[in-house]
């Protein structure tokens, strides 16, 4: 099968890859670019473990094709910390024990970042509905929601 050449931007850096037309963006990130921080939980857009930010909008990488990355800007969990400095969301997830197994964590962090990029002062209800596309089976969401609200407060200064 002929592969397609795709030029894109990933975490602020130019990236190129070859992919089959049916390969999802998630497969490309994980298998071609070795960015395995985005996780596969369902391949149907129901769990959010593969959440990435495409041109400023949160998306399930399992529902996008690799070829759709052409000319776009993709943010993944690997680009969230700046050097050794964790994003406030990442740090507060740790300080407030907002993860147990940690498998859903990258997806939650990316989705929460997309929320705070858009709305720096969300209510608890807004956080809960924004993150309703991300499944966590360990935490009961309590500490995740609190960590997001704490990060929002800290980032507002």
């Amino acid at each position, binding site marked *: 099968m002929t592969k397609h050449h795709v030029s894109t931007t990933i975490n602020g850096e130019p990236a190129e890859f070859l992919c089959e037309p*049916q390969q999802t963006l998630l497969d490309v990130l994980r298998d071609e670019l070795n960015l*395995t921080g985005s996780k596969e*939980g369902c391949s149907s857009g129901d769990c959010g473990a593969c959440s990435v930010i495409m041109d400023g909008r949160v998306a399930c990488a399992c529902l996008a094709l690799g070829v759709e990355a052409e000319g776009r800007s993709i943010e993944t969990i690997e680009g969230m910390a700046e050097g050794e400095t*964790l994003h406030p969301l990442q740090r507060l997830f740790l300080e407030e024990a907002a993860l*147990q197994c940690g498998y859903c964590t990258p997806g939650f962090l990316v989705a929460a970042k997309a929320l705070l990029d858009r709305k720096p002062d969300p209510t608890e209800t807004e956080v809960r509905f924004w*993150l309703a596309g991300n499944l966590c089976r360990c935490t009961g969401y309590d500490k995740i929601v609190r960590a997001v609200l704490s990060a929002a407060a800290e980032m507002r200064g």
Partner: protein
Amino acid sequence: MDGQGQDFKWIGKRTVRPDGVDKVTGRANFGADFSLPGMLVGKVLRSTHPHARILSIDTEKAHALPGVKAVITAADLPDIPSEEAHFGEDPTDFRHVSHNVMARDKALYDGHVVAAVAATSESIADEALGLIEVNYEVLPHVLDVEEAMKPGAPLVLEDLITGGVTPTPKDPSNIAKRVQFDLGDTEAGFKKANMVVERRFTTKPVHQGYIEPHAVVASTSEDGHTLVWCSSQGHFMIRAACAKLLGLDVSQLRVMPAEIGGGFGGKITVYLEPLAVLLSRKTGRPVKMVMTREEVFRGTGPTSGTVMTVKIGATKKGQITAAEATLAYQAGAFPGSPVGLGCMTAFAPYDLENVKTVGFDVVVNRPKATAYRAPGAPLAAFAAESVLDELAKALDIEPLELREKNAAKEGTKAPYGPRFGPIGYVETLQAVRDHPHYSAPLGPNQGRGIASGFWMNFGGQSSAVVNVNEDGTVVVTLGHPDIGGSRASMALMAAEVLGIDIAKVRPIIGDTHTIGFSDITGGSKVTFASGMAVVEAAGDVVAQLRERTAMIWEVEAEGVVWEDGHALPASTNVGEFEPLSLAQIAAMAAKIGGPISGRASINAKGAGPGFGTHICDVEVDRETGRVVVLRYTAVQDAGRAIHPAYVEGQLQGGAAQGIGWALNEEYVYGDDGRLQNPGFLDYRMPVASDLPMIDTVIVEVPNPNHPFGVRGVGEVPIVPPLAAVANAVENAIGVRMADLPMSPPHILAALEDKA
């Protein structure tokens, strides 16, 4: 609160978990994140028939497809004899495990694996599966537990003779086992009762719902040794099962524990792993296998669907005189439902004279039931705690008071035999009574329910090694996969014993070749058993540090004590010496006896039983039938909370899983015996917008058998929610929901029946 009078430096601190940064940056390697050069993709073919004889399998066309490197069926696995296997909380049979991994002679459920391929790409592997020709003779199937128990039902396993009954039946049936636990005389007990309530309950199978699908990479060297990377609840279990199923020496397999993305009991057995090992051995290349979510639903888990009857009698004053339960649990296609554990736990929170529980383990044409967090207990507690509520209402006694009057305490004989040591059930009830949630006002169509839960908790085999590095930092190697933050609590316990800063302690999980045997992560054992091993290994290090100091000071080792991370003279009689820190001794170790390394390999006994009581508020929409949980409080005796934030997390997570089980989750099968909802869209687990904050209260009644008083905490919190939600719904709308899930159609139907 501190029954042992201990003053802690690290225990009870909310430190950042040692594996945390890797998990918030995407660096952590889970099962599917590992790859090797030249790796093949392995895939399995699953039966779409719930019950069918496999007449033949023709793999010729699949073999011939370019890029296909191996095709295997049951004929490629040894036909091993029956042998009891101890993976998790209940024993199983290696022969059944083998037949579940790959169907032999018959496919027993929709999703049962019948063949597997290894190919150079995923698309070729998929194409190859389509070229495998399986010739089936479709057989009548049975899904329902009561149907399966009837004479003349289709036989799932044609040679299954019911165990636990005398005389032994001559003819096979689907009833794998009957179990019974007795205490006193229930017949006499019910005669003393002024009020008896009896009710029948049904529940559907639910899945553990871990977000990480099963994944494995196996790579075999020319010398016949295979390396396996996979996420599981026990890499020693993976090694044992793969060796047994494939006829290999245990030492031929080295299993590396990947980070595990949730298990809840669902990863205490093998599915893909033996197949990946076999494919790798056949091809001489690394093979990676990863399940899709649909495969996870069709081929793994779930826990049992049930039919249960509970009967409880009490005096006018609320003294329970007798309690009986009859529990029939679906085992899936092979024996081994957690019905025995259901029988043992059903009435365990209560101090009762007369108890009888009877359980039936029943095979049906569904996936083999696997452990799910406190296996068996939430179901039995759903029935028992619902009947208790009805009984309280009939006697006009507050449900909390009825529980208080009959609560188990130290010295109570548990219905399954032992007498309880110090336990904290009464303390959880008091904490509920004292909590502002308990007396907060409710609005229209709102209701409040409480329910309690019990889990005996497990100990078992555990190994730990504590190596002191030359700069005074310490590496703690553990044998149990860390499923929810156990490295954090192990580091806290090691730092406490050694008296050094937590930042100097680095805990890791060893692989099967680098750390002594350790049982699965399950049974709420890790903080207890692995914690005991860590405390013992760190104590071994302290003994060595005292010996080295004695060599430096030229005194007897008894003359040196270890306090707050330093060696000190035990008294002025020993001499005048400046304290030596762990780092100072470590720096000199090479010259005074060599490396300092402590170890412990133990079989931990004396796990402390755990009790919890939950308060749940719901609001019921009478038009749509939707139940919303408005407020939720989980109270539990943790013995000692080593890392309180992760204890709270266990309480919150267990409550959320229980709420999903109560309200939404169920396996839906068609008349054709096929699973109709193998995806997260139709198998609806709670999301953030479904739940409120979940308040927690940690009660601490220390377990005297653990150096820091730890009780397991992971499983108890899923036991009360099913009944707590049902009791709240009853309080809101006056309808007793005896069938799970309490989804909108069921609520509406119940409201219509009432009207």
